[in-house]
């Protein structure tokens, strides 16, 4: 059963004092972050800044060393990843690790089954199973409908990235964490991705890690900048573009990716 008692005026995501330590090394430290429902937030930062580590803690892929995470008013700091997914939290991974032996259709089917959870997961497939229809809809949205019956190991890099997004969109997410969805895409594929991000329903909250400034600024209304595991600056895209610190550590020093 999805847990859906969201509080009407609660923030989509509230993060207080989050830290993640690997051995003696703090990958992220003392992070505060507040994201309103429906907000489009970009997270910038040079490689190794801790962006992916922060996502891992937010989703429950790894546990937080310190701090509190609240999703739509409910504390989820100690909750396993599957519970958070059923609350409407989804993510994509920077380095896609998909099911190589499964087709696109079956992968998307599992994404839907995972969100719905429960005993239905084990029932045999029947023609007209609405989870199959949902999988096909996701393929359509993510632009992989033409390769529905290919094994994911046969997909191009761009198609794998699109499939990642399709997985994350299963069953109407409420908050999407996208980890460099445009990484490795050709210049021709990038506008397609922007268009896909822009076409997401307005009530979906999106937190986007993105190196591509065009995509980041075009699709986001607010920006947080991470540096050495700490929050360096927050503000509107314009604020961030003018921020001296940000220029020094990131924009000035960024050599592409």
């Amino acid at each position, binding site marked *: 059963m999805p847990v859906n008692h969201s509080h009407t005026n609660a923030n989509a995501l509230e993060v207080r004092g989050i830290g993640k330590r690997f051995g003696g090394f703090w990958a992220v430290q003392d992070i505060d972050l507040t994201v309103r429902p429906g907000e489009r937030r970009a997270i910038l930062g040079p490689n190794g800044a801790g962006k992916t580590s922060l996502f891992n803690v937010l989703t429950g892929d790894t546990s937080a060393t310190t701090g509190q995470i609240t999703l739509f008013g409910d504390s989820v700091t100690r909750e396993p990843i599957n519970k958070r*997914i059923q609350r409407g939290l989804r993510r994509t991974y920077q380095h896609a690790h998909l099911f190589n032996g*499964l087709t696109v259709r079956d992968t998307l089917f*599992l994404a839907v089954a*995972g969100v719905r959870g429960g005993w239905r*997961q084990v029932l045999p497939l029947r023609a007209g199973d609405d989870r199959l229809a949902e999988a096909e809809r996701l393929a359509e949205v993510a632009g992989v409908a033409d390769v529905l019956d290919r094994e994911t190991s046969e997909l191009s890099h761009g198609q794998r990235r699109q499939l990642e997004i399709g997985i994350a969109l299963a069953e109407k997410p409420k908050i999407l964490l996208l980890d460099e969805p445009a990484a490795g895409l050709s210049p021709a594929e990038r506008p397609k991705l922007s268009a896909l991000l822009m076409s997401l329903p307005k009530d979906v909250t999106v937190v986007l890690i993105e190196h591509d400034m065009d995509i980041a600024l075009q699709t986001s209304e607010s920006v947080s900048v991470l540096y050495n595991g700490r929050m360096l600056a927050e503000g509107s895209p314009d604020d961030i573009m003018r921020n001296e610190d940000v220029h020094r550590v990131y924009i000035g020093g960024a050599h592409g990716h």
Partner: protein
Amino acid sequence: MRPALILIPLLALPLVLNDFWLTQVATRSLILGIMALSLSFLATYLGVVSFAQATMAGIAGYTIAYFGPNSVGIGVQLPFWISIPLALMLAVVSGGLIGLIARRSRGIYAIMITLAIGVAFFYFTRQNYTLFNGWTGFSGVRAPEIGGLSLRDPLALYLLSLGTAVLALALVSGFVRSPLGLTIQAVRDAPGRVLALGISVTTPIVAAFAFSGLLAGAGGILNVWYQERISSFSVGLGPIIDILIVAVIGGLRHPAGAFVGAVVFVLLDTFAVDLIDRERFNTLIGVVLLLIVIVAPGGLQQLASDWVARLRRPEVKEKSTV
């Protein structure tokens, strides 16, 4: 390949084979193939090599021996329509339990754990007399009779084994397309990602082992009828390794390969012993295994289907598969 092309000759086989060939070669291959199928299913779809399949088969076999007619005077007589489902159920439960124990292990660690379970069960059967009758086990186990016809009759046992093999393959191909079967394959490819989709990883692993227990159990029941006895030697290292060899010869990438492997193994086992002595048989099977691992790591089944594919369309050999 169309199933009928294979099935019709197999159904006609009793017309051309004498009892020795039918029972010692054909039926034995089918039974060994079903047990090896339980392993190649796990290896192909869960990506785990289990050494505990002989244990699951043995649990079903011992159940049949204990609850059926035998000549050692141990056990309780139950009608076969109770003892057979009971044997299958215990094999499924033992498979599930073994899966639960091995659920966090992969690769060499899964092999070690399942091997430890298999060996522990072997020693347990040797030491326990009330249920397993120690190392001598059960002899004089008789297959059920239906309308005066014993299922141990060569033709009946052959057809029963063939039917079970076909059913087992059909079950596997249906199961792997079910949501649970898809989840099992997803666990094989990326277990962390399965969890990240919100799906439990333990359930598919336990289910895969339990399902393999069903297959192994079916093979174990047929085997105890075929051998007419079961003892600690039926669940020892010998059978554990035989099942592995059969599955590897056939190829761990396609479940049907188990039957190809079983035929090769049984032919070698039956006839090579006449030509060379027993000691050298192990060397021979070792060499065959080595050749297969080197020449055809996908097993004989894979080798054959590659040839068939090449013969069918030599002109598209260069092109990638689309």
